């Protein structure tokens, strides 16, 4: 290798470093998209566990397996990513959002979802007039390639839980 070639390589190393720094900075701003990609897909609700508390202590529990399927579409349009579902048992946390409907018909409006940071998943309903009717924000306890675990809580007091629901979803 000639001296001239060696000097050119050193120059290229410098510019590669510059490009790497720029790529690092840009990638840091793409996190919201990343979480949406990770959470989108077809998910089987493998289990719903429901715990009821009295005075901060677990009082009774119930669980349901294979409770249905969620289709979380990545429309790249937070917060308007369309959600479809088919439930054999509707998670109680969603009852409020769905208004007791076993399935949402087009005439009922639209169900949408979006991540808010990696820690939160929001599901919300819009009526046919485009007005937000209700929503639920889950805590994302676990997010892996093929597994997602969501928690929904109703507090009894400032520090105690009245109801805790854990949804375990597996990617189909």
């Amino acid at each position, binding site marked *: 290798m000639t001296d001239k070639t060696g000097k050119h390589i050193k120059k290229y190393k410098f510019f590669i470093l510059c490009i790497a720094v720029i790529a690092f900075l840009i990638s840091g701003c793409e996190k919201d998209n990343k979480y949406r990609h990770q959470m989108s897909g077809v998910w089987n609700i493998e289990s719903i566990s429901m715990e009821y508390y009295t005075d901060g202590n677990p009082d009774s529990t119930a669980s349901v397996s294979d409770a249905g399927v969620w289709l979380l579409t990545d429309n790249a349009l937070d917060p308007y990513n369309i959600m479809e579902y088919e439930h054999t048992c509707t998670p109680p946390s969603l009852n409020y959002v769905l208004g007791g409907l076993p399935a949402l018909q087009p005439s009922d409006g639209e169900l949408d979802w979006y991540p808010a940071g990696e820690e939160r998943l*929001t599901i919300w309903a819009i009526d046919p007039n485009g007005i937000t009717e209700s929503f639920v924000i889950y805590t994302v306890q676990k997010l892996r390639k093929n597994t997602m675990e969501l928690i929904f809580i*109703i507090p009894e007091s400032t520090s105690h839980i009245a109801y805790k629901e854990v949804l375990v979803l597996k990617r189909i």
Partner: protein
Amino acid sequence: MNRILVIIILLTFSFPAFSQFGVFGGVRTGWATSKTFNRFKQTFNSYLTDVTEKPLGSFGPSIGYGFGTDYEVGGLLVGFRANTIASTARIKYTDNAKRHFDFDQFLTVTYFGIGNNSESSFYGLTFGLAAGNDKITSYFEYSDGTTSYGSEKYLNGIYDAIHMSGAITAQGGVAITDNVLVYGLAELIFGNIPDAFGCLYDDHHHRSLDPFTEYPTGLPLDYEEYMELMGSFDYGVEDYVKADFSGLRFEIGLRIQFGNEIGE
């Protein structure tokens, strides 16, 4: 913001590659102090004093990392670096529940000043413009240990905003092998540029739409007043914690020097 950053970086790197330059990276520690967060902290603690076992403390010392590159031409030093720091503050209630506030700051600093780079040592005293992001993630830990970011607690949220400030840095290093140096720097983040940054807001879409929970859009400067006015338009729309986190930071790490044979 991305485009602005890229332009700044490209301008920085458009300086001749024919001078002495170095690349460096290391770990850092320091403090993240904020006048507005202190106001929130004081009013928050005051409002909750009857149910508090351990009041909300301050952030810090924070830990993080930094990296960058700089050039020296005729005693003038110009460069770019990026760094992060993170820290946590929490309040503990009498019934063992806790509220956590995780602070994260990412800053890019474009700087210039005086200095000297050589293969055996370097030093510099620089002034720079810091631009980046301040973020506070607030979540609740119930007395049984369950943590929640959910909508049942209205202070739960991820609050962030653009940060812009000044940065004064003193740095120096000595060689440990050919072209590899150990460096240290002290950096003062100061003087957040007024009106160039805003309040730390949670841009969660539903925070402002729910008519029942009166979610605050940020961390209220006067928590007691906010609780009294809950949901009222009387509470100032700008009266929230701002992106004004500053303080003294220290960094140590390794630096690789490239001599002026480049481009000769």
